[in-house]
């Protein structure tokens, strides 16, 4: 009975220590800039994990996908990172919060902004599963479009 009490106490302590309220983990994020064009070229091998998505609508209009850059950053909750994007655009990634989803799944609340000069072309807040990817697409780039892929992992 005493051992059961200690077991439950340890569980509670470990859960409390692992809870976001007490210690929010750092996030390791990667923002991939991808150019999509109509000319033949296929999918860059570095984008193999996105092959299924990039060969389905609404991306079927583009036949060539090339990785332009990867912006990798380590963020503490509440911190911001900016990065350069093609055609004088600037990206801004804000790690707002770490969350525990259903079944103890780690999630991150992020804000992504795309700016050109003083204009904020996109500002979005989203909650994403750890390791998952969200895509933004449509900004003109060359004769095609610019795609951004955002993914984060946490220390937890």
């Amino acid at each position, binding site marked *: 009975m*005493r*051992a*059961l009490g*200690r*077991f*439950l*106490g*340890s*569980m509670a302590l*470990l*859960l409390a220590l*692992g809870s976001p309220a007490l210690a929010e983990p750092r996030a390791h994020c990667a923002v991939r800039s991808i150019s999509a064009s109509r000319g033949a070229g296929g999918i860059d091998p570095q984008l193999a*994990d*996105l*092959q*299924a*998505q990039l060969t*389905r*609508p*609404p*991306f079927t209009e583009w036949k060539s996908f090339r990785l332009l850059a990867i912006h990798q950053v380590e963020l503490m909750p509440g911190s911001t990172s900016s990065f350069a994007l093609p055609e004088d655009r600037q990206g801004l990634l804000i790690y707002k919060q770490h969350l525990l*989803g259903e*079944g*103890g*799944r780690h999630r991150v*609340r992020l*804000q992504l902004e795309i700016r050109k000069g003083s*204009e*904020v*072309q*996109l*500002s*979005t*807040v*989203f*909650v*994403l*599963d750890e*390791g*998952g*990817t*969200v*895509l*933004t*697409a*449509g*900004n*003109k780039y060359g004769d095609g479009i610019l795609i951004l892929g955002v993914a984060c992992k946490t220390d937890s």
Partner: protein
Amino acid sequence: MTRPTDLHRLHDGELEGVQFEPDQLDEVDRARLQAIDEVGTAVRSALLGASQKVDVWSGMAQRLAAVDEARQKQTTLRRWRSRARRGLALLVPAVAAAGMLLWIRSTDPRVTNDCDIELLDVSGATATVMEVPDASGQGATTVIWMTEEAR
């Protein structure tokens, strides 16, 4: 002449109430009494001398010290066992709890792309949120699609 047993009893003072007149003992009896006395004195001296040479205490003290040391070792061992038992009683449930949490977390290693858009603001474009099936076919990746307005 008196019987030797009576002489011994007389020498040891065991003939209470029996009167012995000095003239009742002849020369031989007296000589025997003296001999008994001398032998008795010699035996007593020999025993006393022997007993003084025996150092009983030092032997006992050594044994007592050994017993004390053994007891101390036993007490230390008992204390260590008790502490170890107490430590294990705390450690085992803690390790079990940590193991269970790790197991719970590792039961679903699948990476998913679930994404909830909470806020979306665009300027100079229209935005559409759509979902594209991912490689597993079981999940979907969220795509924020912007269509820039002609200027």
